[in-house]
């Protein structure tokens, strides 16, 4: 597959149905460009590669396409058009440079075995000096901007977990305090400290599991709203938030032990106290 990307200027959108007897070359416009220029399929547009309109040519709009979402460019409006390569080269080639009629900026290659990328690069450089290949996969050395963003979000998540733990502990301490007399009475009628601790553990497990499950449900429900907001804000189909099973399990795996721990720590001081002081006698 051969592709080339050039900046083109939309000079004017003419009325539908060109009267030209020869069929016009076809062009695809991005949805954003079509909306901005109020152009529909079948209409004729004039395109020029130079800002001053020199060398402008007419094209028939064959269709409107949604640009492939690009996380590296989601803040910029996708004002783009796609032409057949010969049409584009005919517009951009210069008489002073005869090779420009067959020059492209990049060639997309799909390898039979992606693991052979390094060997392919070496072979390419040896056979065609002056060219180089670049992998489309994300860099693995941590310099990838998305890896950096991932680390940033992880750090924010850790801080949130610390804040939540303090919140949870405060609640559990209050809850244990509320039940001081009940625990005292239960201990007075002969229930062992170990059994009370097991009850606290079971209660913590139930509350933490229910809370974690509810949190995942809230996140899943918010996923659509967050995506819709950012997709509207940036006029893109890019997916910003995705609550995957792995993320949900990670959250539950973190929240449940924390919940149990908070319950036990909150009740620990009461369990260690002497029974008489618990019943305020």
């Amino acid at each position, binding site marked *: 597959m051969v592709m080339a990307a050039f900046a083109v200027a939309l000079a004017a959108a003419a009325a539908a149905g060109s009267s030209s007897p020869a069929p016009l070359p076809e062009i695809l416009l991005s949805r954003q460009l079509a909306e901005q220029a109020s152009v529909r399929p079948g209409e004729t547009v004039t395109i020029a590669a130079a800002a001053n309109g020199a060398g402008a040519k007419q094209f028939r709009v064959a269709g409107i396409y949604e640009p492939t979402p690009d996380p590296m460019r989601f*803040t910029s409006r996708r004002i783009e058009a796609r032409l057949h390569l010969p049409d584009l080269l005919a517009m951009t080639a210069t008489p002073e440079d005869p090779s420009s009629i067959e020059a492209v900026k990049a060639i997309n290659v799909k390898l039979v075995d992606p693991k052979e990328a390094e060997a392919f690069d070496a072979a390419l450089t040896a056979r065609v000096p002056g060219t180089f290949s670049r992998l489309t996969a994300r860099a693995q050395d941590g310099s990838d901007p998305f890896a950096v963003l991932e680390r*940033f979000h992880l750090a*924010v998540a850790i*801080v949130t977990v610390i*804040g*939540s733990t*303090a919140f949870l502990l*405060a*609640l559990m301490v209050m809850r244990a*305090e509320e039940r001081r007399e009940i625990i005292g009475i239960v201990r007075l009628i002969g229930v062992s400290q170990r059994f009370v601790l097991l009850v606290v553990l079971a209660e913590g497990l139930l509350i933490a599991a229910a809370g974690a499950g509810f949190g995942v449900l809230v996140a899943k429900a918010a996923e659509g709203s967050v995506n819709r907001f950012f997709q509207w804000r940036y006029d893109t189909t890019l997916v910003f938030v995705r609550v995957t099973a792995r993320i949900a399990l990670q959250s539950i795996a973190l929240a449940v032990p924390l919940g149990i721990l908070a319950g036990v720590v909150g009740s620990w001081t009461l369990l260690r106290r002497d029974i008489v002081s618990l019943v305020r006698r």
Partner: protein
Amino acid sequence: MSAWSLAWRTVVHNPARACLAIGGVAVIGALLFNMLLLSRGLLVSFRDLLDTAGYDVRVLANEGSPIHRAPLAGAPSLAGEIERLPSVRRVALIRSDDALALPPGRDADAASVTLIGSTERQLGGAWDIVKGSTLPAEVHPGEPVPLVVSTKLAARQRLEPGSPLRIRVNLAGGASVLPSVDCRVVGIGSFTFESAYDYTVATTMAGFAAAHGAPDGKDEADLVLVASAPDAGPEAAAKAIAALRPDVRVYSNAQVVDQFNARAFSYFRQISVVLSTITLAFAFLLVATLLTMSVNQRLGEVAALRALGFPRRRIAANLLCESALLVGVGGVAALPLGGVLAIVLDRILRAMPGVPERLHFFVFEMDTVVLHAALLTATGILAALYPIWLAARLPIAATLRKEIVS
């Protein structure tokens, strides 16, 4: 006893609970403080970075995309025209390209660098000489091309002023077929716009042209930097340049920052708004829940106070003060905690490729502290409303009876 004293005694009566509540508010407050810093930090830092260079207007070619702009042809004559404008004080031409720096005899130490050509010998704060001298005003024929290399490159390639270095320019999109040129390091500098993953080398425009195989020089520039006259200002200078040459794009630093704000910075602004809202909601829930539980535990106490003649207003004031104590102490503790957290988060984000090392995502501003305090105050007041309502509507006799029976 005043409402403050009563609130203080209530808080001190349960130190563990109070410490945990204050700790929770402090951590959440720190996160809120960070998100507020992030909402403007990059912009403030970027503006500072632009201003340190000493130029306040940028002139670019009209053609090309905003990222890959075509070079300006006839740049020296354009610079001359601009310099003659009364609103302009100083003009500099800038070119940049990717190149390979090869220390002679040590090919293994070769490094990819950004080669900058400039008409200025030392670009204000864009690079500061830390060792050696700045670029010479004139280079005699046959002399090696003078270079100022960044401190990082000097450390990596063990370069000192006077060290020889070969530079080979990479042609756009491909391996270079240009020969390397002999250069000499005249100075080692600290480059403002250098990122963590980059090495920078600066030379004269003639040196830059020589590295491109055109010793007589080319008349192209990627960028014309303009310093406006103090009495005219950057906006007037930008207008005058745009009127003089409608075929170029002219931006004042403020306009560049605006564009940056609208495009590149947009994501961080949105993230900071979303996370600020979540942290505020979290702080509200934390304080409201703790106060509500606290009131529920003290219903008998509140009813007794009311029975003794304490007015509703006094009970409300007591709860409000309790909320203010928790949020106030937590909010104050959030500032140093947020400062430390900002350093950590800033270090993470600055590892992003292409971000200048001197650019910061979190920048301290007094306005942010004021906003942080205002938001936490509003949260504290809102969080106290429900428990106040509970306490104010308490049926005195029924509550006291229930308390005695239980």
